[in-house]
């Protein structure tokens, strides 16, 4: 600290802490990723026309400026195109090829550094969720975790696996009785999306994930908070290291 009363211009750090910038650019990210996810999962089919920009912006709860920027990004990556005339408007161009190829393209949108940052954040959130769930969950909550794990273990497609894993983490957050942690968990899942499932293509890796989750449930059930936190933190960290490695390998191909 410089000492003495504050005077003169605000430092950038103080300004950011006191008046954090509004999150418009983040919202563009979220909207762009959500749309591209829906296209990749096949929820928005090839050739399907999107609602008008005004309607879609209202539906998503964002400004038309934010939406337009997100749409521009998807046009740039070829997932959308604009057609003129009758039956025109913004149209979905579902990419051909295997889902895993599309996921690889998406993984390339992240830098290795961004993956590490996301990994740290996910580990912090998931770790605390597991810790608090062990202290606060009732048998009913543990049963719900077990249900999601069973769903995960029996999932066949990558999309099913992704959804069951995402739900496992969300149920853990709700078992922690924390709406803030649950929101943070959902937000991180939206940001990272389904690229984690590139790892689950390898059956060995998938079995590891199921095994890790089993350990978390056992620790939550036994009310061993630190053990639950350690188990899930190790799992999330390992997942992100693998993802970073995968991402690095993509560039050298």
């Amino acid at each position: 600290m410089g000492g003495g009363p504050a005077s003169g211009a605000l430092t950038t750090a103080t300004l950011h802490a006191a008046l954090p910038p509004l999150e418009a650019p983040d919202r563009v990210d979220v909207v762009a990723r959500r749309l591209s996810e829906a296209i990749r999962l096949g929820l928005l089919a090839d050739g399907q026309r999107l609602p008008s920009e005004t309607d879609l912006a209202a539906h998503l709860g964002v400004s038309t400026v934010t939406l337009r920027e997100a749409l521009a990004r998807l046009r740039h990556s070829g997932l959308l195109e604009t057609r003129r005339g009758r039956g025109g408007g913004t149209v979905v161009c579902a990419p051909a090829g295997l889902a895993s190829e599309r996921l690889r393209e998406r993984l390339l949108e992240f830098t290795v550094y961004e993956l590490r940052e996301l990994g740290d954040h996910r580990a912090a959130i998931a770790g605390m969720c597991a810790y608090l769930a062990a202290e606060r969950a009732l048998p009913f909550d543990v049963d719900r975790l077990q249900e999601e794990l069973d769903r995960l273990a029996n999932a066949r497609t990558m999309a099913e696996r992704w959804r069951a894993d995402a739900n496992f983490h969300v149920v853990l957050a709700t078992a922690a009785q924390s709406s803030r942690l649950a929101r943070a968990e959902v937000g991180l899942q939206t940001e990272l999306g389904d690229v984690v499932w590139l790892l689950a293509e390898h059956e060995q890796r998938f079995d590891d994930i199921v095994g890790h989750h089993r350990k978390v449930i056992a620790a939550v059930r036994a009310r061993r908070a630190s053990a639950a936190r350690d188990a899930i933190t190790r799992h999330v960290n390992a997942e992100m290291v693998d993802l970073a490695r995968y991402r690095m390998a993509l560039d050298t191909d």
Partner: protein
Amino acid sequence: MAGLRGATDRLQTAVSAIDATATPVFDLLDDIRNAALAAYTHSPRFDVEALTPLREIAQRALLGNAGWIAGTGYIAEIDALTDQPRWLEWWMARPHAPQPLRVDLDPRLPGFYDYTTAEWFQVPKLSGATSVAGPYVDIRGTNEYTVTVSIAIRTDSKFLGVAAADLYLSGLERKLWPTLRQVAQPAALTNAEGRVIVSTDWRLLPGELLPCRNSPSARRCENFPWEVLVTTSC
């Protein structure tokens, strides 16, 4: 002994005061149920449009119970409405005017809000009884830590859905704190599972589980499946 009896009386006073707060909630749920039944019986089609009077009741109730009822509305049984397979006619209190809740109702979407499995939907549907669910994190819905009070809406032969109201934990605490404070000893309001809703004991925070069950000091509420107890006896 006089001191202990005094504390017991004060617990009973707190329980009565908490029970009294239920009245506007139950009145509202009756109004919503009646509006849904009227729409079902008298509209040419039981669709979202037919819910307009119900919508107005919900909005008015939120304005009239600011800080207490955080959200309210009608949640449709699957395929009960003719134009939407799933529907929440749900309104939330906001600073200027009530706002509708927007959720993903498409089962194929990752963020799908599957309300049919929620306790507040299942219990009235299966048992016909009033449900007081939570506190729970309403993830993918309002995302708030919530208590939901709900009742079934049924005709003679058909279950149409539920009428419900949300009470958020902050609202519950602001409303019930003075009452709990009057117990004069550290006290807590807990749900049937022993989860703390409001507490005046710093060692026991909202959302945490009571370290003991069946405390001798516990007094049961009538309108909610809740208990008030002196935490030092726990």
